[in-house]
């Protein structure tokens, strides 16, 4: 046997499952430089541009009448579409995870549709459905209910785009959890609603919050689909992302970036909350895995 096989004689050995220090540094370096260039730099630029003429100018731009209306509309749209998608998401995830039925695979595919389709197409679909040359549009208009180029259209387009977030977040978790806890609750005498409220909902609460958070971020930030159906009536159907574009096209850079930094702030808050949730929710997931 050659003496080099003796582990004591061997030179310093590194953990065979990791890379050498040089490789590690290079990989880390590439990732960090890329992130800085593509993500961090633009983010800093947004805030820098907004504050170029001082915080007073930025505040003035944000409190402009049309901008305030855009902020209000954005909040309204999120306040309608997020709860609706929350209810839909829970219902769909519940159905998919806990029951067997015909067309289940189709439903899962359908939920994913908004992810795979371009938002512009999502908007165009509503133009086709409710436009002047459609069947529904003129009828609804005659009743005095305008969908296209009005708030309902903006809400519909946003709901379409943010459809999958909650359901997608819940389905894998609920599938992993199975129906054991629900059966236990039923056998203890709880009815369907009590079982949902006391057992199912607490089991999914963190994932649900996480899904709502992502859904909300997207609802407030959606541009493409909303841009098609909104018609850009200032102060009426313009949301924050649209307002930013309008201001930018009018060369009001400071105003555009001031509103943009509001959206960016929202993104940052979302990220922080998301990390907090992941920390908590990961903990809970580990606990539930240990249980099985």
């Amino acid at each position, binding site marked *: 046997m050659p003496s080099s096989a003796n582990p004591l004689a061997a030179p310093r050995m590194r953990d065979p499952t990791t890379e050498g220090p040089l490789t590690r540094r290079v990989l880390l370096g590439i990732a960090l430089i890329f992130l800085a260039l593509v993500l961090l730099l633009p983010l800093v630029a947004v805030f820098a541009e907004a504050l170029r003429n001082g915080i007073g100018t930025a505040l003035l731009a944000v409190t402009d009448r049309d901008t305030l209306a855009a902020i209000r509309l954005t909040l309204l749209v999120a306040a309608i579409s997020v709860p609706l998608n929350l209810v839909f998401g829970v219902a769909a995830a519940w159905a998919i995870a806990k029951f067997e039925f015909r067309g289940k695979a189709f439903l899962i595919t359908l939920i994913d549709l908004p992810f795979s389709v371009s938002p512009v197409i999502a908007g165009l679909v509503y133009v086709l459905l409710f436009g002047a040359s459609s069947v529904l549009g003129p009828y609804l208009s005659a009743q005095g209910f305008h969908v296209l180029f009005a708030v309902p259209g903006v809400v519909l387009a946003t709901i379409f785009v943010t459809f999958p977030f909650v359901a997608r977040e819940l389905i894998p978790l609920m599938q992993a959890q199975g129906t054991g806890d629900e059966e*236990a*609750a*039923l*056998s203890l*005498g*709880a009815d369907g609603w009590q079982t949902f409220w006391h057992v199912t909902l607490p*089991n999914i609460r963190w994932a649900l919050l996480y899904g709502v958070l992502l859904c909300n971020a997207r609802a407030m930030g959606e541009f493409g689909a909303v841009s098609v159906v909104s018609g850009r009536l200032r102060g009426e159907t313009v949301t924050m992302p649209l307002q930013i574009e309008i201001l930018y096209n009018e060369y009001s850079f400071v105003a555009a970036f001031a509103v943009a930094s509001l959206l960016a702030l929202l993104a940052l808050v979302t990220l922080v909350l998301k990390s907090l949730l992941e920390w908590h929710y990961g903990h*809970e997931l580990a*606990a539930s895995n240990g249980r099985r």
Partner: protein
Amino acid sequence: MDVRISNVGKEFERFPALHGVSLDIASGELIALLGPSGSGKTTLLRLIAGLEIPTEGTIFFGDEDASRRTVQERNVGFVFQHYALFRHMTVAENIGFGLKVRPRATRPPKSEIRRRASELLDLVQLSGLEDRFPNQLSGGQRQRVALARALAIEPRVLLLDEPFGALDAQVRKELRRWLRDIHDKTGHTTVFVTHDQEEALELADRVVVMSQGRIEQVGEPDEVYDRPNSPFVFGFVGPASILPVTVEDGEVLLQDRPIGIPAGELPTGTAILAFRPHDVEVVESGEPAIVGTVVASRRIGGVREVELEAGGGRERLEIEIPVDHPATARSRVAFRPKRWRLYGDRPS
């Protein structure tokens, strides 16, 4: 509460899981449903609980037709293999859950629920753990909490689905005795499912052996172990050697040679001989006996387990002989079962 299962069948998407099963369970009895996976034992338990609806047949609780009742109305205590404790509730909240969800008219006050939970924790020997969460407990403790939770609703029947299946061997043994104690103290009619014959035989008043959606045999543990009514039951309830033989004129033959076992009243034809590996005696060659070639042998504690090929080399048999017996060194061993069961071809 006595439970009567009458001709119950269950199909899942046209796949039959249970065929016309009938079983009477006396009040206060501790019954084991024993069988391999896929034998329908868990399905039967879930049918009693109301977690499944039978395709045919009826289940009575006393004189009441329970199969028309929902799981909530049946008031059964169900204990799951993986505990199914509510992980966001404390131990006390878990145990009190069944009382908390009662309609206002029959719901005890909060302090009473809490008191009941503590009482039940005493019963399952976990006093003082009221405010722990399930993930802070060991597997054995969790299963005790699950049982306390099931007992809290004062169930008419207690049902346990492989209650010790997820626990390690040591804890299993301990909990077995403990469950027997609890049963004797509380007197609930109890049905538990297991695939572990030792567990069933040690714990139950009566054992129901199931296979392929049918009940093979129902009896007290001794009866099932000593007088299994089919080769399947014989093989399932304990270590077994099973050998196809022929019967001719009241004698059992293996490859046309008598093996020194009377066939009793079995008619001429093929039959199946079954015996326990420890119920054999080694004999000198020349006497009528089963002769086999040693394939493998291993020492297990005080005995040597010898694997033999007999009956034309196709059948593997296992026998146990004392370690100091001279036969342990031979390559061919002749032996005769001291006790055995002989099964004629069942008219099917």
